[in-house]
């Protein structure tokens, strides 16, 4: 594919988690400012801005005004939910390749958590009257994200024999990585027994199968690889990308719960990068739930379809394992910033800035984004090395 090579040159993260009293726009302002400074740039260098609003859709194009950015050549919101972060890097790269913009800031910001209220309330949707046939699932009681993913996970279990203990191995591995991440919210190691004893949220998903809903913002700066080479941080080169949005048929023969968009998005990204799944050193997988990690790893081809349970139970994902995965603790143990969680950790690992948790071999990193209930998927492959033709 003939595209101008691009790179992620800056990363900006606010305080993440139970951080109250700030609006998404205030978080976004801080994240973009930090990302620009991280790259050795100023806000005046930014000529493109892509904004991924969170679950409440309350961050928008007014962010240009908040940041006092003048004469932008690219400005848009991107809403692919958990796949948005990677989508933004893709669109930024294409805009740069087309000569439309030179320095594009991509930001996710949200503040769904309210003081004194639980994570469930943050994503509950709240109080809308139910109307029409589209409301039948909610009327039946399928309202929360954990419940909707639980139905998907249960289908995988019934079809392939995947077990709760195997899902637990994913949570245990993520926490082991988080223990080495100063930014992680949950750093106390857990055991499989802890997982099995954690309260049931929506069977088969337990509390420790679920991500940590968080307030905050993360931004990245995308520019040409050529320009990135002269900036403050080691460039994180973009090698390949893909998207796939299955549009599951609500009908006999549907793959819902069994195969995700990763099955098409992953191979597309690998093909663009000119590598195979066996070349990947580190996986940063969107892990809103443990099950999401499992199905994504299967669909990317790190193990055969249906064998994800055995694969993760082998310890492959954990520190010291054969397939280092979610090396910052992921959304399960670190922070839930939608697709910016795996993307930010990929940038840190590619730069070699992972400190105690840095994976020695970091030549190729595969990053996933997932939105809806497996409805939207995006993949990115990055590397500390410029891609040779």
């Amino acid at each position, binding site marked *: 594919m003939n595209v101008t090579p691009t790179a992620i040159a800056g990363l900006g993260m606010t305080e993440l988690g139970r951080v109250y009293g700030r609006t998404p726009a205030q978080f976004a302002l801080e994240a973009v400012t930090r990302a620009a400074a991280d790259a050795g740039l100023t806000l005046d260098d930014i000529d493109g801005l892509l904004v991924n609003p969170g679950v409440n859709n309350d961050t928008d194009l007014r962010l240009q005004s908040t940041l006092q950015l003048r004469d932008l050549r690219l400005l848009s919101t991107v809403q692919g939910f958990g796949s948005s972060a990677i989508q933004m890097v893709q669109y930024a790269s294409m805009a740069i390749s087309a000569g439309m913009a030179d320095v594009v800031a991509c930001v996710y910001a949200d503040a769904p958590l309210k003081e004194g209220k639980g994570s469930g309330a943050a994503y509950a949707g709240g109080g809308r*009257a*139910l*109307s*029409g*046939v*589209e*409301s*039948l*699932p*909610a*009327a*039946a*009681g*399928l309202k*929360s994200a954990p*419940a909707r993913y*639980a*139905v*998907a996970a*249960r*289908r995988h279990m*019934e*079809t392939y024999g995947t077990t709760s203990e195997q899902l637990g191995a994913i949570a245990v591995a993520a926490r082991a990585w988080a223990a080495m991440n100063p930014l992680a919210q949950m750093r106390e190691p857990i055991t499989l027994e802890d997982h099995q004893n954690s*309260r*049931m*949220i*929506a*069977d*088969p*998903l337990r509390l420790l199968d679920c991500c940590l809903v968080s307030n905050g913002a993360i931004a990245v700066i995308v520019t040409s690889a050529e320009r990135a080479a002269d900036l403050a941080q080691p460039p994180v080169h973009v090698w390949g990308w893909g998207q796939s949005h299955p549009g599951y*048929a*609500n*009908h*006999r023969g*549907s793959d*819902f*719960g069994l195969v995700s968009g990763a099955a098409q998005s992953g191979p597309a990204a690998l093909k663009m990068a000119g590598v195979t799944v066996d070349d990947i050193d580190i996986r940063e997988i969107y892990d809103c739930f443990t099950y999401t990690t499992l199905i994504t790893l299967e669909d990317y081809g790190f193990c055969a379809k249906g064998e994800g349970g055995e694969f993760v139970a082998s310890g492959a994902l954990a520190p010291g394992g054969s397939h280092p995965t979610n090396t910052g603790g992921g959304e399960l143990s670190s922070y839930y910033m939608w697709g910016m969680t795996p993307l930010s950790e990929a940038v840190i690992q590619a730069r070699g800035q992972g400190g105690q948790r840095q994976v020695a071999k970091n030549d190729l990193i595969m990053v996933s984004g997932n939105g809806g209930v497996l409805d939207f998927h995006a993949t990115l492959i990055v590397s500390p090395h410029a891609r040779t033709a």
Partner: protein
Amino acid sequence: MSLTPVVRDEYSAPFFDGAARGELMLRYSPSSGAWSPPEARVCATSRAADLEWRAASGEGALVSWTVIPGRSRGGRPAADTVVGIVETAEGPWLTLRIVNAEEVAPAAGAAVRVEFVRPEGGESVPVARLVAGS
């Protein structure tokens, strides 16, 4: 076993009229001969625009499900909520409350029969009853 009430809109009126009669209404395309789920605006198989409401058999099989534990309030235990995807005999999937999971254990492929309940303040809606011994 309280379901959240649903009100009708113009599109869904035939569905809820059918539910009030005890009939499960799905979408059917005469040109393709294929059934689609209630929310379909075009045929899920052929994309044809000639969908019409047609009564289905009310028979189906469980595809998957979740059990959401009840939260006890004021010392009173609350019942679990069991919700699942039902594949109707005609093919379309419906997400339905399962009303007798404490009597018949849910399992993939288990036979279900669609029934109807009418929550206060809303239309009649379909629910699923697991068939014992299926």
